[in-house]
């Protein structure tokens, strides 16, 4: 997860977070930790005042495992400033549902970030599911990102964004 530049809410942004391995000590820097650590150290983490983020992983969990369950985050939502959703392969779209659950069911308002194998043509869909931060490869500039987001002019269905979708908007 090195070598990327960040786009948050459609604009280039400085990375202010660090991904922490489970055995690395917590500092005062805004840190993204694993779900396991979040669950194991819930009490200790409550003492900490620096911003806390978590990554929902989808690999390294054994071959038939689906990936971590977004609903396990429920008890911690209020304490999280960032949730990173890991996409192990662009074909694996499980994270799109996680994003919508976070935004629409848990009303999560912090940074929702896509990390991993994400293609040009997927940014717009992720954005509609509520993902607002993207780790882009170094050779992709902001203009390219914005073009991708605007390629389809509308949507039929509501999702986690402001677009109500044509099936609902037409009557209005």
């Amino acid at each position: 997860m090195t070598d990327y530049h960040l786009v948050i809410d459609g604009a280039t942004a400085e990375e202010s977070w660090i991904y922490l391995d489970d055995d690395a000590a917590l500092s005062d820097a805004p840190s993204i930790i694993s779900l396991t650590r979040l669950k194991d150290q819930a009490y200790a983490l409550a003492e900490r005042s620096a911003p806390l983020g978590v990554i929902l992983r989808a690999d390294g969990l054994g071959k038939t495992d689906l990936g971590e369950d977004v609903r396990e985050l429920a008890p911690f939502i209020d304490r999280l400033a960032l949730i990173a959703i890991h996409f192990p392969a662009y074909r694996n779209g499980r994270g799109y549902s996680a994003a919508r659950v976070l935004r629409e069911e848990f009303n999560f308002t912090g940074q929702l970030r896509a990390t991993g194998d994400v293609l040009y043509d997927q940014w717009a869909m992720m954005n509609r599911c509520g993902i607002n931060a993207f780790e882009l490869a170094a050779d992709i500039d902001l203009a390219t990102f914005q073009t991708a987001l605007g390629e389809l002019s509308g949507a039929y269905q509501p999702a986690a964004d402001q677009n109500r979708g044509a099936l609902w908007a037409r009557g209005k």
Partner: protein
Amino acid sequence: MYRYDEFDHKLVADRVNQFRGQVERRVSGALSEDQFKPLRLMNGVYLQLHAYMLRVAIPYGTLRSEQMRMLAHIARKYDRGYGHFTTRQNIQYNWPALDEIPDLLDELACVEMHAIQTSGNCIRNVTSDQYAGAIEGEAEDPRIVSEIIRQWSTFHPEFTYLPRKFKIAVTAHKNDRAAIKLHDIGIVVKQNDAGEIGYEVHVGGGQGRTPFVAKKMTDFVPKAKLLAYLEAVMRVYNMLGRRDNSYKARIKILVHETGEEEMRRMVEEEFAKIDASEMLTVPQEEIDRISAYFAPPAFETLPADSQAFSQAQADDADFARFVRANVVAHKQDGYAIVNISLKPIGGVPGDATDAQMDVIADLAERFSHDEVRVTHEQNLVLPHVKLDDVKTVYDALAAHELATANLGLISDQIACPGLDYCNLANARSIPLAQEISERFSDLDRQYDIGELKIKISGCINACGHHHVGHIGILGVDKKGTEFYQISLGGAADENAAIGQITGRAFTEEDIVDAIETVVTTYTDLRADGERFIDTYNRVGMAPFKERLYD
């Protein structure tokens, strides 16, 4: 029929431009094949043996004549003068060049058609009953809800990278012609005791390597709640469907592995959450707007019988046979539903030439309120023909080899493209269908045999529905040579069932004889009025097995 508004037009145009960009990036090397493949698939572009293949969506199998004419034009201009109508009510072109596909799609868009989501692990083209709006006894035209589902599922941001493809079918009739129980989601439109329209939902059907008949998840979802219910099913599937093995990734496996009860519980739980926001409750005005497009055409008030129609049958025995096999009662007095068989004796099931498509478009325009339907059994339908006009229509069809009077009979077979075209095939399907059709070419013999559905797939993916054929034939590969396995007793209608394999496979030389053995076993054993499937269900596999292998 549904007509695009500006919004629909713009979105399809955007999509073509987007794909044009993707093709350019692939050709320039900016995209690798591995990256491009899911994108081209999402736009219906496959690679077959000899060339690319483009699959064009025909939502719920309904076409206007100008659309049919465009399909003919595309066959002529971008392909080799024909197209293949498929079991998913789509049309496939076998020879388009990749760099011409964006132009082809531009032309299609002019008549409100596209290839969006005809492939890939997304929600595919919604299919429905070919007699929708024409047959007596529907709770409501199933195309209304099909169109709502089409729109909702198009470019769905959450469900475009599912574990596997996802197919939805809808019927509104007690006789299921859309094989809804063999779909990931099958919907029956019905009326409850209070007279309200709602939906019975079946989940987890499918064919392929491990066929399953869908389980009924709920008896009745109220009209306005259907999308919330569907989204609940989809979300459960997207979160819990397996992604480690593509053969275990369909929702049928999830339903099977978690169990029907648990699946229902999870769906209900998700449904409650989604429905609480009312975000997916479709506004009544929009339902009304879409419904208006499917209002019945301006039928004339006619007597139930037509003198001309009866007289023509008396005068022309071939026409009488056509009427008997291919013409179905319409809900409106004085009208008929006319089936066009794409299974001429010795022909390629489902193929139609550009000239034939043009003829059918003209007939639809003049005699069928501008409508043509595509059936999952790879035939076409003129849904609203006046009885007085049936003979004229028949004569025009006959002049173009489109009047084969074999609907539902042994030569009306389904066959996938098989090893003549398909990259995944083990064996050829089409030549086999041709040989069987030649063997049973005598129409009187076909009528004597009666309703019999033979369905042929060139590999276990089951695009030719072999699992649900009364007689199913599956091509298998043994060391580079073609073999064929027979199964019996499958059904794709309201009594959906998966066929049982008879035993060891037959060689290319022996398979047609084996089919004949199965047929004569049936004719020897049948009781009065029994169809093949009835006899099979009564006597079971044993007598067939005995005759086949002793």
